[in-house]
């Protein structure tokens, strides 16, 4: 019971800090608008292929519909990783010590912190849902609930990942470089802005996309996360629907464990 109170306190602090940071909120709102309303709508007409003179859509969705689930993931990626900055902040400005001399075990401190970051990331992810009608995506309650659960799972893993990196980075500047060098490459190679299969058969894929790109996309765990989001929101899966769930679950457990090992050592 005492422990729950402590975890709650740490969670509450993370959430309050994030909500009081205007810049982060502005980013969370402007990013999906930019990607969805400008890039998405702009590329909408080109998202189809011409096969033997016959114009047909590559997949039976518009481009805006196709990238909508990926933009949810992008917003979660930025916010989760950003929340790890609070770890560097706490270390630099001494607040970490206040927590380290408290009678809370380390794992509870870490859990509170990650849950706080996760909450904010899920919040930013669901900001994208507000734009669903502009993307022409019907949104039922079931979709929303299922989507929120997936967002939570992904955000938990990514926040833990951010904290692992933050433990190894000594400065804010270093972290800024990191987040740009990692977030966008991971995002672009997750089959977020183009389908893995531009045509409808394997043979055509090999012709159209180079092997190295297909390789990168297929080893990127986020590919499967995006796939799970697509399955939920537009009913389109490139892989086994369970695969995304399993990989996100593994990320959450694996990264949390690693972060805990780090934190216990610190």
């Amino acid at each position: 019971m005492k422990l729950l109170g402590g975890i709650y306190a740490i969670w509450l602090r993370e959430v309050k800090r994030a909500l009081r940071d205007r810049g982060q909120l502005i980013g969370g709102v402007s990013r999906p608008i930019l990607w969805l309303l400008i890039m998405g709508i702009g590329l909408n007409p080109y998202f189809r292929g011409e096969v033997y003179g016959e114009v047909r859509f590559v997949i039976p969705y518009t481009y805006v519909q196709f990238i909508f689930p990926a933009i949810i993931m992008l917003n979660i990626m930025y916010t989760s990783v950003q929340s790890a900055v609070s770890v560097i902040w706490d270390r630099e400005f001494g607040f970490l010590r206040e927590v380290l001399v408290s009678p809370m075990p380390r794992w509870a401190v870490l859990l509170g912190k990650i849950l706080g970051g996760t909450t904010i990331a899920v919040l930013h992810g669901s900001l994208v849902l507000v734009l669903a009608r502009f993307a022409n995506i019907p949104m039922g309650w079931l979709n929303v609930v299922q989507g929120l659960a997936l967002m939570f799972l992904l955000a938990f893993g990514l926040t833990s990942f951010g904290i692992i990196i933050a433990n190894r980075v000594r400065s804010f500047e270093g972290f800024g470089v990191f987040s740009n060098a990692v977030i966008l490459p991971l995002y672009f190679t997750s089959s977020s802005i183009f389908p893995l299969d531009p045509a409808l058969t394997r043979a055509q894929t090999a012709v159209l996309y180079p092997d190295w790109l297909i390789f990168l996309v297929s080893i990127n765990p986020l590919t499967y996360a995006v796939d799970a989001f697509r399955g939920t929101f537009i009913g389109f899966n490139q892989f086994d629907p369970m695969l995304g769930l399993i990989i996100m679950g593994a990320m959450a457990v694996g990264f949390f464990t690693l972060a805990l090992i780090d934190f216990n050592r610190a």
Partner: protein
Amino acid sequence: MTPRPVPSPSSEAGPAERASNISVRGVSKRYGRTLALDDVSLEVEAGRLFALLGPNGAGKTTLLHILSTILRPDSGVAEVAGVNVLTNPLDARQRIGMVFQEPSLDDRLTVQENLNFHGLVYGMSLADRRRRIEEMLELVELSDWREHLARQLSSGMKRRLEIARGLLHEPRILFLDEPTVGLDAQSRERIWMYLSELRARENLTIVVTTHYLEEVEYCDAVCIIDRGKVLAEGSPEELKAAHGKEFLRATALNAEAADRIHARHPEAIRSGNSLVIEVKDAAFAPAFLAAFAGELETVSIDRPSLESVFLTLTGRDLRDKKAEPRDIVRAAGQRGEASTG
């Protein structure tokens, strides 16, 4: 493994029975090639205001970090309030309050939120938190500031808030690491005022590190530490008696009188008609007066000061008479903020 200590904070009878002493036995800590603490042993009785005095880098902060379970010693045993900090760190943390040298508030939270956070993390009930936050804010005179963000406070106020926070969970021992560094004289005095008030009210053991000699005078017991070793321990009076030197300053009426005194006391330091003579025993001053009373313009005795104690023990002055660069920077930062008040 030592057995778990039986009494829990709530089940104890009266404040009189609290044995909140600190015991350090043979603690050593090495950072690379520097020996930060060299076989340090210490005992602090319950209810004391205890000072660790020494120059920067003497090992004071290292010792405090070991006692507050942040750091593990390489060897030795440390106990706070009867709990071994090495085998039972979580229990030990519940019983101690800590005020760090560097500020450790969340400056994006309000005064009240900072305190409430602390209460929750230390497992306090809602009713306890309400009552204690009220009491502590009153004590450090910040009741009117509860809704302000911590960053809006002056550094003196921040330090007071940290003291309030350190005491919120009713610890038996409060550690303060250089609580007055970087503060102006008025704020420093206030902090000492709170500390003595607290000790009377809460039956608290307070351990303070400092390198300000004048502040040590407020304490019951002082431990002088330098280069990781305990050099002396005792009340300020005891230390002065044991290690301080007493000096007699006399101004003779004229040069002949001064010559006569100098002839009798060749070890005296003379400048013009003034002489400074080391007082060796209690009989010295009366004998001196009996001999020269008629030939003196003024005479005074300098009681031994802790400064002279420190000088005698370490063979040098406290290293940091001048402000460190960090203090200067910090002080400059403070001037930009609200006034200390």
